[in-house]
């Protein structure tokens, strides 16, 4: 059978698994439903890996392209280009890891709903894989909504707690609104071109010059995707949702879902808008660069200020998304491949860090940095994992996140010389924040932080454990999963085959004409010239520099209490994160206007 035939199965298999789990879930014992869930997720992962392998070793027709239902040019196309297939594989592997991690999680699943949690995770997997593989704009919207709907439900899963409900509601309202904005944009594109496929829309657009309609379509479509990617000022929902969702869900939300938003922005731009009838490259670069830099800086600053561990990690995701957006904004194959590798490495590291936070939550019923001070000395293994995760987050060679950061900052440096400094600074601050928390929690280093110094409102880390009672001994999967994820992240940086495959993926991803020809005409395309990510002396030195900076920042922070001056200075920034849905919606609309202002030609 042609491997391309397998593309829709990456979506269909988990959906079937979910249906089976829901139909039988209420009668099945916990163990069986967990095994069924894992089996379906693993089967999907195997399919996705097969597609990925075929994408790396293409046949006569180029990488796998499948028109669902056999409707050539009339139906929906799924495209297994190396980057899309790679993301689908990443999603599937992470889902397997998450399901294994939650093996001992939720000691008491909701009565009669044993199958619901794995079923929802499987649908989530289907949505994310579909989004990564689709070559059709409306189909992308459908999968975007599918991811969203599942994610809202999963975020609010623990209904006995007040915080998850509030976070899930903000998440739901803001993301749905973003999706509707995207749909308005899709409709405008349909009105202009009468097509829905990326490749078809792009070809039609290029027969005419750009005008207000195209600009509006770009802004509206991108707004929704940026909401998912949590770019400033669309980011407010993310910390609220990611900090309160069940830990296994956080691993997926922060690890891959947000990054899929960035992927969507890049995919839509390169396939639809990058031609002469779309949006000019300088305009796109300017808009995304401004948003990316703002996102990275704000994320880093807010990350440093947190004491709620999961919220800290969530803000670090915001910061890194900013860096990913910058990598996309520079519009080079090297920027894309570096960022892709960065995303891969980051997914493993961030998921591992959330997994460690989950262990703390279940044992001590809190993830508050101040309350946990020194209490986790008894968990040295978790502490080591946490510290390694913090160092990998700061871009320490030879982790995959380090190589990705090095390659992305090198590519960004060609656009603006100061961008590498931003990469170093942001990864140092976020890595430093993690290390600071680790030093306090697992080693009890420095002075015990005093609460009365804190001024203004803030979220503390008191939560209910997600397992039935507090954990005594740490079950094996809760340690094995983060360890495996960190090892995978390390492997990404040291196995040269990964870097060369990612380099090739980036080159094919940015080849607009090649994509359109492969999808619509079935032509195999030569891979354009490119430089795969590789270790260079500057990259290694900058990586070591950020790791050293991170350690220094962390040590300084635990030795000396926070300056009240800086805290007061940053108070207005923190107050913006108000937890108020009306505020978030107002910012979303203002963000659309900002994006318009940034993309209108001539605005410098």
């Amino acid at each position: 059978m042609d491997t391309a035939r397998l593309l829709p199965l990456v979506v269909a298999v988990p959906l079937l698994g979910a249906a089976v789990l829901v139909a039988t879930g209420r009668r099945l014992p916990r163990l069986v439903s967990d095994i069924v869930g894992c089996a379906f997720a693993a089967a999907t992962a195997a399919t996705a890996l097969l597609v990925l392998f075929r994408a790396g070793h293409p046949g006569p027709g180029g990488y796998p392209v499948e028109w669902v239902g056999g409707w050539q040019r009339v139906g929906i196309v799924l495209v297994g280009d190396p980057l899309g297939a790679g993301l689908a594989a990443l999603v599937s592997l992470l889902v397997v890891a998450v399901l294994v991690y939650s093996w001992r999680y939720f000691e008491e699943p909701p009565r009669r709903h044993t199958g619901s949690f794995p079923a929802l995770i499987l649908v989530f997997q289907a949505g994310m894989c579909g989004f990564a593989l689709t070559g059709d704009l409306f189909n992308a919207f459908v999968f975007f909504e599918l991811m969203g709907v599942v994610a809202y439900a999963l975020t609010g899963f623990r209904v006995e707690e007040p915080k998850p409900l509030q976070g899930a509601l903000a998440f739901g309202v803001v993301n749905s609104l973003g999706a509707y904005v995207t749909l308005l944009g899709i409709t405008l594109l349909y009105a202009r071109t009468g097509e829905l496929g990326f490749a078809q829309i792009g070809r039609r657009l290029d027969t005419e010059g750009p005008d207000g309609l195209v600009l509006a379509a770009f802004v509206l479509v991108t707004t929704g995707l940026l909401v998912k990617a949590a770019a400033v000022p669309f980011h407010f929902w993310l910390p609220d949702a990611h900090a309160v969702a069940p830990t296994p869900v956080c691993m997926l939300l922060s690890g891959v879902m947000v990054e899929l938003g960035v992927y969507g922005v890049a995919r839509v731009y390169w396939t639809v808008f990058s031609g002469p009838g779309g949006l000019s490259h300088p305009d796109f670069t300017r808009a995304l660069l401004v948003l990316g830099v703002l996102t990275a800086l704000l994320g880093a600053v807010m990350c440093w200020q947190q004491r709620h561990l999961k919220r800290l990690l969530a803000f670090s995701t915001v910061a890194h998304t900013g860096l990913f957006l910058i990598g996309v904004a520079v519009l080079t194959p090297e920027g894309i491949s570096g960022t892709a590798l960065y995303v891969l490495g980051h997914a493993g590291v961030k998921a591992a860090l959330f997994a460690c936070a989950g262990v703390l939550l279940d044992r001590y019923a809190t993830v508050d940095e101040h309350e946990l001070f020194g209490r986790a000395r008894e968990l040295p293994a978790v502490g080591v994992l946490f510290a390694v995760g913090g160092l990998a987050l700061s871009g320490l060679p030879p982790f995959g996140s380090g190589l990705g950061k090095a390659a992305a900052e090198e590519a960004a440096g060609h656009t603006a010389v100061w961008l590498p400094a931003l990469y170093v600074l942001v990864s140092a601050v976020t890595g430093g924040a993690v290390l600071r928390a680790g030093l306090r929690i697992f080693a009890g280093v420095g002075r015990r932080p005093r609460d009365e110094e804190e001024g203004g409102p803030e979220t503390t880390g008191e939560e209910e454990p997600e397992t039935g009672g507090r954990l005594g001994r740490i079950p094996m999967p809760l340690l094995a999963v983060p360890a495996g994820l960190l090892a995978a992240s390390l492997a990404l940086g040291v196995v040269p085959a990964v870097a060369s495959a990612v380099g090739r993926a980036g080159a094919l991803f940015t080849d607009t004409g090649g994509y359109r020809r492969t999808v619509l005409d079935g032509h195999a395309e030569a891979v354009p010239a490119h430089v795969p990510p590789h270790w260079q002396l500057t990259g290694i030195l900058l990586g070591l520099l950020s790791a050293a900076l991170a350690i220094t920042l962390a040590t300084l922070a635990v030795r000396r209490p926070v300056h009240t001056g800086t805290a007061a200075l940053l108070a207005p920034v923190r107050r913006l994160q108000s937890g108020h849905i009306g505020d978030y919606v107002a910012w979303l609309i203002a963000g659309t206007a900002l994006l318009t202002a940034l993309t209108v030609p001539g605005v410098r």
Partner: protein
Amino acid sequence: MSPRVRLWVFLVGAAGFAALFAAACLDLPAFGTVPHPYGVRAVHAALSHHTANVIASVNFDLRAFDTLGEESILFSAVIGTVVLLRQARDEHRKDPEPATVHPPVRRFALLTLPFALLVGLYVIAHGQISPGGGFQGGVVAATALHLLYIAADYRALERVRPLTLYEIGEAAGEAAYVITGLAAVLAGSAFLANVLPFGTLATLSSGGTAMVLNAAVGLEVTSGIVVLLARFLDQAVEIEEPGEGGGSPRDTRDSGGNGDDERERA
């Protein structure tokens, strides 16, 4: 932010949005004259598969993959709602008080109920010929069942509504959709390809797999909406929060069972 600042942020954003959207509208072709290359191809494709209702053809044949996503959204939203509206650990149920219903209302509702159910099923069955289909018919049928709430009372509704069955029906509808798609792959064709005979245009059995998928969606939507409404009714009528008085509390927390299961046994 204070309400005043929030309003200003919104107004600035709305002004930008309005300008952008208005500019786009002025560049759009005039209303009624938009070109439709895809639409024209879709009409040809639908007729080539003998599906009279082109919209049904687009939904269940050309873009059946979209509908798979759409049904999965409904499916996961229903699981999500069931999970979110579950009886929390600190809540208990009370039996709803039997309501008195005025005889004319009861007669009207009881008369309308079979009629509405029939309309729902009719709309599902004729999806590939006339406007309507699995989704519309499913919603009508599911809503019709809830006329019983008006006609009799909540307990009467619960008797004809074994929720477990509907939850399984929902999953079965979703599974049937996927399996129909997979069957095409096993038959050596593309996923969700229309491999059945197309039949005669504008007859009940026309459209090939479009008809099967339509039925699967009908099953899923009917069951899904019933479960959805049931959960909301459950919250509104039966589930009591801690500290909430009134009624006859029936704590099911330690008895191992719960409301639904007890009702199923009854």
